């Protein structure tokens, strides 16, 4: 079962290695990882999607909490949260098919951010199902390459995983 963990870490050299190394050496499989800064200087947020049963996830969380640079681990899976992933898709686009692609992109609220004589780059944001559907449609035109950010997540409403230190 897929679980989504939000991990707040100290922004120091080697922290990503410590976290990802822990997953691999304890045999947990990371499906997805996204890292970025937070509002607090010196603190980064990792969003990790891991496929494991609840007991294994409990163990993952405990082991993560033992890492000295890990400040907080929250399991967002059962919480009300919103998650998004951004994908850049480079798709084949002969002049005759451009408008078709543009229409499709509009349906998915995707943006065309680069056009060349025979290809386009499209930026699309959303949840996994929408992105899958979009990629399926783009395959008809021929996908040359994609890059994705990995999923990021926030709790709904005013709840936060950690209050800002004033």
């Amino acid at each position: 079962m897929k679980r989504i963990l939000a991990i707040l870490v100290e922004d120091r050299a080697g922290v990503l290695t410590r976290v990802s190394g822990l997953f691999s050496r304890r045999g947990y499989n990371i499906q997805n990882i996204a890292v970025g800064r937070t509002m607090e200087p010196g603190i980064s947020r990792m969003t990790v999607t891991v496929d494991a049963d609840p007991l294994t996830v409990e163990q993952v969380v405990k082991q993560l909490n033992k890492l000295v640079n890990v400040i907080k681990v929250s399991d967002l899976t059962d919480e009300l949260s919103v998650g998004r992933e951004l994908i850049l898709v480079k798709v084949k686009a002969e002049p005759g098919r451009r408008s078709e692609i543009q229409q499709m992109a509009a349906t998915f609220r995707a943006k065309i951010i680069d056009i060349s004589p025979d290809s386009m780059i499209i930026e699309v944001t959303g949840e996994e199902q929408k992105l899958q559907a979009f990629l399926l449609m783009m395959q008809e035109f021929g996908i040359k390459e994609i890059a994705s950010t990995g999923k990021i997540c926030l709790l709904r409403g005013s709840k936060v995983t950690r209050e800002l230190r004033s």
Partner: protein
Amino acid sequence: MKLSGAQMVLACLEAENVEVVFGFPGGAVLTLYDELFKKGVKHILTRHEQGAIHAADGYARATGKPGVVIATSGPGATNLVTGLATAYMDSIPLVAITGQVATPFIGTDAFQEADITGITLPITKHNYLVKDIHEFPRILKEAFHLAGTGRKGPVLLDLPKDLQVEEGEFDYPQEVDISSYKPTYEGHSGQIMRAAAAIKKAYQPVLYAGGGVISSGAHAELLALSQKGAIPVTTTLTGLGGVPTEYALFLGMLGMHGTYAANNAVHHADLLIAVGARFDDRVTGKIDTFAPGARVIHIDIDPAEIGKNVLADIPIVGDVKLVLQEILKRLRPGDTREWCDRVLHWKKDYPLSYQQKDDHCLKPQFVIEELYRLTGGEAIVTTDVGQHQMWAAHYYRAREPRTFISSGGLGTMGFGFPAAIGAQVAFPAKTVFCIAGDGSFQMNSQELATAVHYNLPVKVMIINNHYLGMVRQWQEFFYESRYSQTSLEGSPDFIRLAEAYGARGLRATSVEEVAPAIKTALQIPGPVVIDFHVDPAENVLPMVVPNTSLVEMIGGWEK
């Protein structure tokens, strides 16, 4: 106060009351060793970095204080790896300081460069590569704090050569503030009440105590709980010494080479109270058949241990000493009379046994029993890993905590002798014996030079069966006696080896030579190696068949 990085290390050692460091110099720690020289810090020069870190580990296990080890960059640092892993597995507090190539050279494959923080990531509690001299005082303080608090463990500091010279303001912090590191010491009061209630209701309870009891100094509380609750108690290898051996309800060690009484008690228990133990596979056997009818109370300072291998009905995170004290306050004993009778019958009817038939084929167990008899169990004993280690666990019945020192989790051959050196440095007046195998001893026998150099009167007792005995035993049982690469032909004459270093060497090959050899060794004021030639065919029994339940044992008592 302005200090150089090297001076900061020395100032920190002073502030942390470190009385001795173990180490081996080299290019990337020259400045540090120069400060050491100027300050006159007590330093034990081993002959291999692995010897240094095992010695620091032995010192830590014997005293409870963090052991400190220094090594140079590259190969010096990588030679610490086995020692770090050993300490990590058994939760032993160590601070390892390694030199690193100068900051501008990091990442260039410079001479004697190795990414030691990368290499030791999975085998240290935490590690640091120091990049800014201004952070160094905080890092030093944190290193000692992390090593010696919570679930203890090794911490490594990698200090580049240029930072040993560079100066910075040194104001050693009194307090540590790591927002993400706050170990829980007090147990949850509700859980403690539930535990006390479960003990009251239990008819067949067993205490299963591990190294955490030694680490937190909870031996008195453990004994009190066993006595007041009338609860039989068994320990793991690393828990040995945590219960007085003559205590009636002490069942000995459990697990793969556990006693009949201990394994049966755990198997038939209705309540298992795990105290500072981690349900290691050498303890549980096949996990789904371990203590099948028992509710489990699991007390441990590390929340990640709880539920890792065995689900706990009543988990209690906290320092085992404090938790046991709270349980004791609320303890009302259950009715365990019938159970204790049954367990004591097992203990009486199925003791550990061997037969010393004639005096020409010396049994290893007899040698260790004689050591126990002649030292009154008052020596500090370290072991290597293998058959002799299990016989030591069975027959050297350590009476006091921190007097039985053995590599449990990692099972590191070559650990015992340097660890004995560390223990002897900690307690110069105590009798320290290393019970070694002929295979294990040869993994760090170069430390004879260290023992001679500092005139450390460590006695090494080689249980010499001319084989890598434990592997040979498994080959006999499970590989149809195909003894692949386990015969140790070409081993040295251990007497002459000892003498070459300037130590004394003795030998015993028959029953009547054993006691005189041990007595002679005890009278010699310096290091001694005693070579006991024992029956090569002897096996460690009882033994739980791998991947079965604890009660499916190959015997030994029925002979």
